[in-house]
């Protein structure tokens, strides 16, 4: 008797990647429609890419079935899916030759296309495109379809491609939680309902709703419907791509900037809190310790940004300082990366500011938004736990026999979670240090390299120097450096462990480097 199930290859990675590709192909089709409706002629590359995604995805789904769901398999599936979708997601740019410029070779175009796709899917928002249109550009160099695809890549990456897959793949069973945890920002996956598939569905529905709400907010503030939708997509994802050269600064409107800040702050908040608030429990925000810390950090660090600017006085009056300072603080704490500068050297261009607020921005790049949100960085919860770890180390010295658990929302965090968070930070520091050294060895300036690495790891967007909010990453980094930053973006989006453990999982020496507990040891857990 013919049983198709038996003929399939056991590959969890193949199955997840296949479904993800099918989902992403829908975005390409929509982008092609946008191109056609917009009167462009560049739908060809989008449709060909969609075909590649659909055929590849269907073949994978048809030929594979869910197999191993061990931790290594989970991390491998998530990391491979992300890298493959990113690589294939650069196809429209390559076929359209979006990155073509005088003196740019074909290989550099391909590398830049990968960078742009990685920046999109990882919700970073860094760009290599210097020929984005202005608001009323009669003859834009890049078609509307490609620009819409660029926005959509961030929207897909915001909630997570694998989360989308989980909504339709029941075969994963209990291990679906591990997949969710491997992709979701934070150390654990918050479930809104007991079933993980149902959780994924509801989170995506909520995400669609939030995107719609943000788009509406932009329209009310004064954007056109299409611009509102485009910016809504990247605001919900806290990505920061804008179809315009000067980002939000293109509109030069306080109302739009206020709407943008509100959208970014919503995107940087835990979506589980939004879900509960939508269900009627609005007080959940204030009861959540991480959200309170998020609010305090935004207010506190905003003040630390504004005070030196006011003392310096070179930026302008109080209004200008508040507008530029608060907007840039919010865009960086939420890891969105929108800019409100109207060009290089204007008030919103923080690369021209005195260095004190920029030190704060580097710290914000490291912290990022809340866990369970679409934002990047190391997350507010981890920063809070780290503060607890530092305080505890001092307390422990004063009271050597005391027991000081680290608490969150009134409950003690298990030591393993604390250890995992500490380790995350150690790896984050390590990658930042190694990345900065390598990129400076490749020729970038020290502060540009440092900010570029922090920006990529934290999925922020702008760096410093020539790659600031009004520049591109072509100006500050050469091609190998940009490729490395693109990889760091995905590593940062998957919160380090998924990619590292994909490679280290099969490394047998890992177990020898970490010796087993024996009864003679003085160690006691």
């Amino acid at each position, binding site marked *: 008797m013919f049983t198709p199930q038996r003929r399939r290859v056991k590959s969890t990675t193949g199955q997840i990647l296949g479904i993800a590709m099918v989902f992403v192909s829908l975005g390409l089709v929509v982008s092609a429609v946008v191109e056609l409706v917009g009167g462009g002629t560049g739908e060809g590359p989008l449709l060909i890419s969609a075909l590649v995604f659909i055929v590849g995805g269907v073949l994978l789904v048809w030929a594979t079935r869910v197999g191993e769901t061990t931790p*290594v398999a989970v991390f491998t599936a998530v990391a491979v899916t992300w890298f493959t979708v990113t690589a294939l997601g650069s196809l429209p740019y390559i076929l359209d030759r979006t990155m073509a410029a005088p003196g740019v070779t074909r290989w550099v175009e391909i590398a830049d296309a990968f960078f742009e796709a990685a920046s999109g899917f990882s919700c970073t928002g860094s760009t290599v495109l210097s020929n984005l249109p202005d608001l009323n550009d009669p003859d834009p160099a890049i078609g509307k379809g490609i620009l819409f695809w660029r926005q959509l890549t961030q929207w897909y990456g915001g909630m997570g491609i694998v989360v989308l897959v989980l909504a339709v793949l029941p075969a994963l069973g209990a291990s679906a939680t591990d997949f969710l945890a491997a992709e979701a920002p934070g150390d654990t996956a918050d479930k809104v309902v007991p079933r993980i598939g149902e959780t994924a569905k509801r989170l995506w529905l909520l995400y669609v709703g939030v995107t719609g709400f943000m788009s509406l907010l932009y329209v009310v503030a004064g954007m056109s419907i299409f611009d509102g939708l485009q910016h809504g997509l990247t605001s919900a994802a806290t990505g920061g791509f804008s179809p315009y050269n000067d980002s939000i600064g293109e509109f030069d409107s306080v109302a739009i900037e206020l709407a943008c800040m509100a959208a970014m702050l919503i995107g940087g908040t835990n979506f589980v809190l939004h879900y509960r608030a939508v269900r009627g429990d609005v007080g959940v925000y204030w009861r959540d310790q991480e959200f309170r810390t998020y609010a305090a950090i935004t207010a506190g660090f905003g003040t630390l940004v504004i005070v030196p600017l006011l003392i310096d006085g070179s930026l302008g009056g109080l209004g200008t300082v508040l507008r530029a300072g608060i907007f840039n603080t919010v865009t960086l704490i939420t890891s969105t990366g929108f800019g409100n500068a109207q060009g290089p050297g204007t008030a919103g261009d923080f690369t021209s500011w005195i260095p004190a607020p920029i030190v704060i921005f580097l710290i914000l790049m490291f912290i990022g938004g809340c866990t369970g949100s679409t934002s990047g960085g190391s997350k507010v919860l981890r920063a809070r736990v780290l503060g607890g770890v530092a305080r505890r*180390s*001092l307390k422990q010295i004063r009271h050597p026999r005391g027991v000081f658990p680290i608490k969150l929302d009134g409950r003690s965090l298990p030591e393993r979670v604390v250890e*995992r968070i500490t380790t995350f930070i150690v790896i984050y520091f390590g990658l930042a240090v190694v990345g900065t050294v390598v990129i400076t060895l490749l020729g970038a300036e020290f502060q540009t*390299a440092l900010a570029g690495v922090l920006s990529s790891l934290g999925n922020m967007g702008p760096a410093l120097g020539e790659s600031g909010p009004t520049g591109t990453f072509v100006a500050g980094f050469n091609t190998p450096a940009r490729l490395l930053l693109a990889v760091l973006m995905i590593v940062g989006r998957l919160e380090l462990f998924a990619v590292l453990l994909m490679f280290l999982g099969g490394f047998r020496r890992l177990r020898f480097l970490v010796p087993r507990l024996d009864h003679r040891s003085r160690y006691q857990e």
Partner: protein
Amino acid sequence: MIPRRPRSAWSIRLAATQRPGVGWPIAMAALLTGIAAMAAGVIDLTAAGDAAPWLLWIGVLMIGPSLYWLWVRKAELHLRGRGGWASIGAYWLALACFGAVVHLFASAFSMHVLDALFESTSGFATVGMTSISDVDNADRGILAFRAASNWVGGFSALASALVFLPRIRRDGPNVDDEYLRGAGHALIPTVRLGLRNVGVFYGAFTSVGFLAYRIAGLGWFDALAHALSTVSTGGFSTRNGSIWDFTSAPVEWVAIVLMFLAGFSVPAMWWAVRGRGTALLRSVEVQLYLLLILVVTVVASVADTHSTGLRPTREAVMAAVSFLSTTGLVAFDWQGWHVGVQTLLIMLMALGAMNGSAGGGFGLSRAMVLFRLTLRTMYRMLRPHGVRVVKLDKRTIPEEQLRREAGYLVLYAGVALAGAYGVAFFEPQLRRSLVAAVAAISTTGPILGLQTAAELSRGARTALVPVMLLGRSAIVPIALLLSVVTASTRREVQYRLYGRRRRPRALEDVRP
């Protein structure tokens, strides 16, 4: 019952309570600063300098009361619990303040108070940044006091790390017990003998350094000043261009060897001197120290395209050793090097020297412990039920220490960033602010983009003072001193406001 040996006049009286007592550390800081000032005054007399009378007078003024406090009032050294930590913190603060007074006197009050505080802190914290713009023409007495302050700072750091802190923590020293107590060659059997052994070792090392510099061609004063500042990883020089001004390859090689040894763990060297040197090479920390020097040397010599012959290698070795040992003596123009090598050197200074050395920085053993912790966490993520420990040199690291090192990483990064923010208030360049903060907390000294710290604004230099002190004292002692002072002040204020009836719970924190 074994009868207790009668105390000699030189015995250190250890307090029996946990109460913070800052008399002994302050008196000892005054004594050491006074001796350094008098020594500098005597040297200045030989050069007929203007500062000699001032230095001698302030030396007498400091030594007199400190001797009275230590031996007549019989001040006790508090080494138990938080009192011990507070004592260490108070000692470093006192050194910085007394040193500033000496600088003010030595300059006949022509130096700004904040500059004097900066110079003193930089000296005792073995940082080596200077606010003196023309060192070449500075008074010899002042130069001697700067070098002596480096030396006292280096000795204090060693005494603190090897003698006092293990005693205060009571959970063993940072370095392996065997280093200290193994094979019958105890380095630190008691507080007094430990101080004596460390002092003898440090003194002998300094003497060797002095002779080596002298043989390499330096004059006696330059040799002495550089020996004092090299073995302590301080980095103060008697020239504007540091030892580069001597344009002597032998001097540079002597400096390289001395800096290499200064960044080495003293217990490890003690072990080597006692004939167990081969075991050293099995130490992970030693291996990492050597590996980092090798890698940076190779990268820097490959990237150096300006020099010819052996010069690139010598410059590269010197850069690696100088920054890793956090000494900061330079005989090369690293400002003109490839930006990648510059970044590598900045990271090296942040990492710092070996544990148990006079060098500062984060510490190689801490970095290794955190690296092993990272591996364990990743292992646990793959095998959630696996039970694994973190070991370093076959020694299981207790969980408390793992937590402590993680906490220290956060504190270290936090202080560095706060310092960078403070400097950035006064400095126009971000890179300079960041590097200055790293150079200060790691107690290294050189700032990328500047010849000396005198080019920084006074505000920026003042912002670096607490960073240097916290970096030198490994943050915790001063943080605990502040917490004790805060708790004590809070108790006093609450007591005065509310009287006896509403005595706050915070009292429990400061009571013995």
